[in-house]
């Protein structure tokens, strides 16, 4: 069987949106795909050694909230200090209760399966990010490097 290729651009740095790139990549790798993820802008948060990601109910009408708060809780109050931390805590607990893997675990599984993780050099420079904050084994490169792989990929996703 010829190896298929999956290319992903990961652009988001919130707890909820951190999952799709790592779930899809680890699964694709298990199915025999060769996988590369290009992390750009806020997606670079997913490469930090210490993941400190949060989920926000603000401006997110589709997010189910505890006690059906998404149905009756005034939207403007989701901007209150502490709401984001509370929702993040609840989300993490829910994920653990339901046997959903932690991001650290999924990311490690991706690395074990030789998923190539590429950090956008431009973003690193733009936000004055420190490469020593990032995990080992990643590559720093630009858009052309992404296309080298994406151009021959079977599936290409922008997340």
């Amino acid at each position, binding site marked *: *069987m010829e190896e298929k290729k999956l290319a992903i651009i990961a652009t988001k740095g919130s707890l909820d949106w951190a999952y799709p790139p790592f*779930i899809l990549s*680890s*699964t694709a790798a*298990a*199915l*025999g795909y060769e996988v590369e993820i290009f992390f750009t802008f806020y997606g670079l948060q997913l490469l930090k050694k210490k993941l400190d990601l949060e989920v926000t109910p603000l401006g997110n009408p589709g997010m189910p909230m505890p006690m059906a708060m998404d149905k009756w809780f005034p939207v403007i109050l989701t901007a209150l200090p502490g709401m984001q931390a509370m929702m993040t805590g609840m989300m993490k607990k829910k994920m653990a209760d*339901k*046997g*959903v*893997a932690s991001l650290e675990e999924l990311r490690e*599984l991706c690395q074990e399966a030789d998923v190539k993780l590429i950090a956008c050099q431009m973003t690193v420079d733009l936000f004055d990010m420190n490469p020593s904050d990032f995990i080992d084994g990643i590559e720093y490169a630009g858009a052309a490097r992404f296309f080298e792989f994406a151009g021959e990929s079977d599936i290409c996703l922008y997340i």
Partner: protein
Amino acid sequence: MADFDQELDASGLNCPLPILRAKKTLAGMEAGQVLHIIATDPGSVKDFEAFAKQTGNELMESKEEGGKFHFLIKKA
């Protein structure tokens, strides 16, 4: 249930962990050997079908018993 060489209990784990653990366990097995996987994630039924189809490992059996899902996969 037919004989198997190794068993993997993925109970309580959610997508995509049962598949990832199965893949890892199969990697340490010989061709022709059979892996018995136990899972509680209802999504794993379709997922193991798809896994077998795409990896060439044979899904010999898939059934629900006592609220759990059981799969037998023969390594290609």
